[in-house]
């Protein structure tokens, strides 16, 4: 394995279709956001609406007859929705919101598995100027309540099953939530008290609608992300972000209108929205939507049967495919597949090479985050891959490695291979415009003309960026950010728990797993039964995606003199690393 070269050169097979980005330096130098903006359809008077760019624009083009969404249900059901049909369905949804009196700027949350209604609701709401906030369906009631409360959601679109399981119990704590629109997965009408049946509402309204002429700076999407401390942060994105979705769809994913494209990310996370809904539809491609959970055989079958040509997936999934062995992949053929990209956490070099050796194509890792709204740094068709690197900044994106000087000023590190914080020059269209109701936290992200990403990285002499780690205690598990505070708070609600400290424990498959350390109140003692009870307690509140996978008991947790739990020390001990400077510790530890 170690004998592999450090650079993976592209072959003719990798460039069967002339890529949009083929001469990195020249195209990057020539690029301007204004020019990219000019490539959008736009609305009269300089208005931009994401849903118009993603859906209605196609009505005037040959792509109107293209299949926009090809949905594959859990039981193998198939449903094709063409662009012209998607326009009508989203019109209906927009009319439903108008009928209910939902105004421009009101917020609508979506809590669904990957079903067609999710896509119709998101795009229909955007058409009407309603701000859309997708929630991950594997969240438990606690994370849902926190996000719906912060976002003051007025409307929630969900399924009957998810409503009964996760929302009904928190409904009375959400005073802003006026309407719950339910989807019945079996197609039957729903009749749950306090909710409305979405199918019925949709049937009762016209399928024509005039798209709201949103301004480029009008809010469109609200994506929640996690910080080290406090509650989750709601990152606000605007309709003008569509310019970035368009440009990155071209340059990072190399989308062409005849592509069959599969983004495996769930729309409950930003990737599944920016690149599972918006960017691909803007390019007129056919999006594969797979409702089922990961399964190696199923994924290979789907890649083969659907003749996927561009595939955007994640390191955890790739490593799970690797685990299934090369023979599983070799039972299938992927002659149409021509470009593979990955995001979520750094893709290890073995995985990049595995793509080349087993699927016949290298995997292009890229980097971005909720706040950036779109891909920023990427391995593109235009240059060789250095496996393990996140690539180079896309056209329109300027990145740097910075450090904070003793006097507090941020300075750029220009020497290659020196570690610092990854920072970006603000100004790209999909940059977040704020954390909802948390102006101070937003301001703290910017200093000395840089947006500070919170990721540690280095840049080599060729301009490739390499991820090093997080600058804070946020946990990255299966590509999703998890705030330790949210997990600790849920554990602290248990009567036996005195204190809790939560870390990300490195894991070969998912990057990090959530591990909790707890100390107990007097009168309680550690036991396997209590450990199981705490695990169940956390899972019920947080859901499987956020709850700890491991819980360990400690007599007490290390704290700083100011009383903060030292997660870093817990992590260092877990890994058997030197504990570093412990002078800040209570009693010197």
């Amino acid at each position: 394995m170690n004998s592999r070269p450090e650079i993976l050169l592209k072959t003719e097979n990798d460039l069967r279709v002339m890529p949009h980005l083929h001469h990195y330096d020249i195209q990057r130098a020539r690029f301007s956001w204004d020019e990219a903006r000019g490539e959008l359809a736009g609305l009269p008077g300089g208005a931009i609406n994401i849903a118009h760019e993603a859906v209605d624009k196609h009505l005037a083009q040959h792509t109107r007859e293209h299949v926009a969404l090809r949905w594959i249900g859990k039981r193998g059901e198939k449903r094709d929705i063409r662009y012209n049909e998607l326009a009508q369905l989203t019109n209906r949804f927009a009319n439903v919101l108008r009928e209910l009196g939902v105004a421009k700027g009101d917020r609508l949350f979506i809590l669904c598995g990957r079903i067609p209604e999710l896509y119709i609701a998101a795009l229909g709401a955007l058409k009407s100027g309603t701000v859309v906030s997708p929630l991950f369906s594997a969240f438990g009631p606690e994370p849902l309540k926190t996000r719906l409360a912060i976002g003051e959601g007025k409307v929630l679109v969900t399924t009957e099953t998810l409503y009964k399981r996760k929302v009904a119990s928190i409904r009375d704590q959400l005073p802003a939530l006026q309407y719950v629109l339910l989807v019945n997965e079996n197609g039957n009408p729903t009749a749950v008290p306090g909710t409305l049946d979405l199918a019925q509402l949709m049937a009762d309204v016209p399928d024509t609608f005039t798209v709201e002429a949103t301004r480029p700076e009008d809010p469109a999407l609200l994506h929640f992300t996690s910080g080290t401390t406090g509650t989750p942060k709601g990152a606000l994105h605007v309709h003008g972000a569509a310019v970035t979705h368009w440009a990155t769809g071209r340059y990072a994913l190399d989308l062409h209108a005849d592509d069959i494209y599969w983004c495996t990310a769930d729309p409950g996370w930003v990737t599944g929205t920016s690149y599972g809904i918006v960017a691909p539809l803007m390019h007129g491609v056919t999006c594969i939507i797979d409702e089922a959970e990961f399964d190696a055989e199923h994924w290979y079958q789907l890649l083969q049967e659907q003749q996927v040509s561009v595939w955007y997936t994640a390191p955890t999934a790739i490593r799970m495919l690797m685990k299934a062995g090369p023979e599983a992949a070799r039972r299938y053929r992927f002659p149409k597949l021509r470009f593979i990209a990955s995001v979520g956490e750094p893709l290890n070099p073995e995985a990049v090479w595995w793509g080349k050796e087993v699927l016949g194509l290298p995997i292009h890792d890229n980097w971005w985050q909720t706040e950036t709204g779109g891909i920023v740094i990427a391995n593109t068709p235009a240059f060789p891959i250095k496996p393990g690197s996140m690539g180079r900044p896309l056209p329109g994106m300027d990145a740097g490695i910075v450090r904070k000087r003793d006097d507090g000023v941020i300075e750029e590190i220009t020497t290659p291979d020196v570690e610092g914080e990854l920072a970006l020059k603000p100004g790209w269209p999909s940059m977040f415009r704020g954390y909802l109701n948390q102006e101070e936290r937003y301001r703290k992200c910017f200093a000395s003309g840089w947006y500070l990403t919170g990721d540690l990285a280095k840049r080599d002499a060729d301009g490739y960026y390499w991820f090093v780690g997080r600058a804070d205690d946020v946990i990255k598990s299966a590509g999703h950010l998890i705030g330790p505070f949210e997990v600790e708070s849920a554990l602290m609600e248990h009567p036996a728990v005195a204190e809790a400290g939560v870390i990300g424990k490195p894991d070969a498959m998912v990057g990090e797993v959530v591990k909790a350390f707890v100390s107990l109140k007097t009168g309680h003692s550690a036991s396997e039964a209590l450990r199981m009870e705490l695990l169940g307690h956390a899972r019920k509140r947080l859901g499987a995606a956020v709850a700890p996978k491991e819980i360990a008991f400690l007599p007490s947790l290390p704290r700083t003199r100011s009383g903060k739990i030292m997660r870093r020390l817990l992590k260092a001990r877990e890994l058997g690393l030197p504990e570093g400077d412990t002078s800040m510790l209570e009693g010197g530890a």
Partner: protein
Amino acid sequence: MQTAELRNTVHAILQSIAPEIDPTALDAAAPLREQIDLDSMDYLNFIIGMHERLNVDIPESDYQKLVSLDDIVNYLRGKLPA
């Protein structure tokens, strides 16, 4: 191992991963992951748990067959000595 005993063992393995679940309250014929909250890692740990507890080899290509609790019990039944 009797089927009832096997079913209890499967329930115990599931509960070691998701203690909040009452396996006896589940519809054993319906897809498991539609009824309870298990992420991919939980599901993998569940399968690894069965492999370790029962010493049964479960190749990755068979995962697709293990949809409901009944599927799982029947599958294991066929793999274990009668």
